[in-house]
């Protein structure tokens, strides 16, 4: 099992509000809300709290947000700085799978052992992602649920046949129950899972056209090796070789399970 993570500042950003981290068997990204104060700090606090939780082999979103909120208070940061997405993937040895979780927008991608790619693009069409920070503030949560909460999840499949896209979730109004989206990727069928901020959907060609998510993923996930800083190398290599421009900050983290892990599982 090997994991790596990287993040890159968008072309027009003063500070990178995305953050990513990886451990031996987990990977995560966070994307701070641009309109919330000091969300660059908040994304890192959420990420750091999740990191500590994942290092223990678990991820409880409410505990993560509470731990991050405590740190924010200690640093005299506004509570709203914690408005950040959290997408994570981790190895579950008992379940023989890689689990993934998404709170807010972004992309979860997985590669099947036959080489085909699947991805779930989580979108909030009204521009208000379901940040985990709302879970510890009843007033903000109530307002969000009354006024926002549209969510759409598009499944992309890129295999031997023609790429296809299917809308698999269409929430007109989120309630608390499906706040957090979860996946389980059996190691028998999948060898790599990546989590990405929504910057993956905002990449542009050198002439300024927006890339389709399928085209972006084919390049971003074209790892030749899965050792060392493989995610950082691939993201930088793709940006360098393709001349892509970043329409937004981009964070990406991936976890790879070689065949020996499959046998162990």
């Amino acid at each position: 099992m090997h994991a790596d993570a990287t993040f890159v500042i968008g072309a027009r950003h003063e500070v990178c509000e995305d953050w990513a981290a990886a451990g031996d068997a987990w990977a995560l990204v966070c994307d701070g809300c641009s309109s919330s104060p000091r969300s660059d700090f908040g994304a890192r606090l959420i990420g750091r709290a999740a990191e500590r939780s994942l290092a223990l082999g678990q991820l409880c979103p409410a505990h993560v947000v509470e731990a991050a909120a405590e740190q924010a208070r200690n640093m005299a940061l506004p509570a709203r700085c914690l408005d950040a997405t959290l997408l994570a993937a981790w190895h579950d040895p008992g379940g023989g799978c890689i689990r993934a979780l998404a709170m807010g927008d972004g992309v979860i991608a997985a590669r099947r052992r036959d080489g085909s790619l699947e991805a779930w693009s989580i979108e909030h069409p009204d521009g208000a992602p379901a940040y985990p920070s709302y879970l510890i503030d009843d007033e903000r949560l109530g307002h969000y649920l009354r006024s926002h909460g549209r969510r759409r999840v598009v499944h992309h499949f890129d295999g031997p046949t023609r790429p296809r896209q299917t809308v698999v979730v269409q929430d007109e109004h989120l309630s608390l129950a499906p706040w957090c989206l979860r996946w389980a990727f059996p190691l028998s069928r999948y060898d790599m899972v990546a989590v990405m901020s929504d910057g993956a959907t905002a990449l542009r060609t050198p002439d300024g056209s927006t890339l389709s998510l399928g085209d972006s993923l084919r390049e971003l996930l074209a790892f030749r090796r899965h050792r060392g800083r493989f995610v950082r190398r691939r993201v930088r290599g793709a940006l360098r070789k393709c001349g892509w421009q970043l329409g937004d900050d981009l964070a990406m983290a991936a976890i790879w399970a070689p065949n020996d892990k499959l046998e162990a599982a």
Partner: protein
Amino acid sequence: MTNPTKLSHHAIVGSHYGFSATRIDDLGAAEYTLVAIAADASGSVGAFRRRIEKAIAEVALACKSSPRADNLMLRVLRFDNDLHEIHGFVPLPAIDAKRYDGCVEIGGATALYDAAHNAIGSVTRYGQDLADDDFEVNGIVFVITDGGDNASSARAATVKNALEHAVTSEALESMIAVLVGVNIDAATSRTLSKVKSEAGFHRYIELQDATASSLAKLADFVSRSIGAQSKALGTGHAGAALTF
């Protein structure tokens, strides 16, 4: 100094001699400056070989304490009639500078072009392997000698072609090759200046003697040049030429 089981061996096209390098799977950074130092070990170097060894050790120590240490890999070889790899490309943090004590074993003649060709070829070839895996890579080569070539199978043009290939292959973002003359009299100075032009070295610097202070100054220059080249990585340009 290094665990030999972690090095992989590579051939260089057009050369009898290959090189070794850390396996790509074992590398922890995403970008590297590849440094190759080829040190003359012909008979005439015997009087100051310890100072050459010390200079190489000082370069390694200085680079180890550089903020870019994690992004530097160093390969050292000595040459007389033949080439002898002291160690292949190894990340700086893994190098023990004490290893260079006694590394310059004195031999016979001066296969200067063979050594330059091998040093440049190794940077290009390994750089290509790294670039194929999305590493950002540039290179810098130092060839240290006290005289002209008298034993190579390669020619000056072979070295020049290797340097041109280093750039045109696009494996390396930039490449710098420096010829260093040590303990040089006027006649050798003219010879090495000609070598510089014919073989396409980017720079030629010389020390008229081989005292401890001169070689310490050389070590400082080499270390600073490596640092400048490493800092230039990602800019698309070579590091600034520094004053010797």
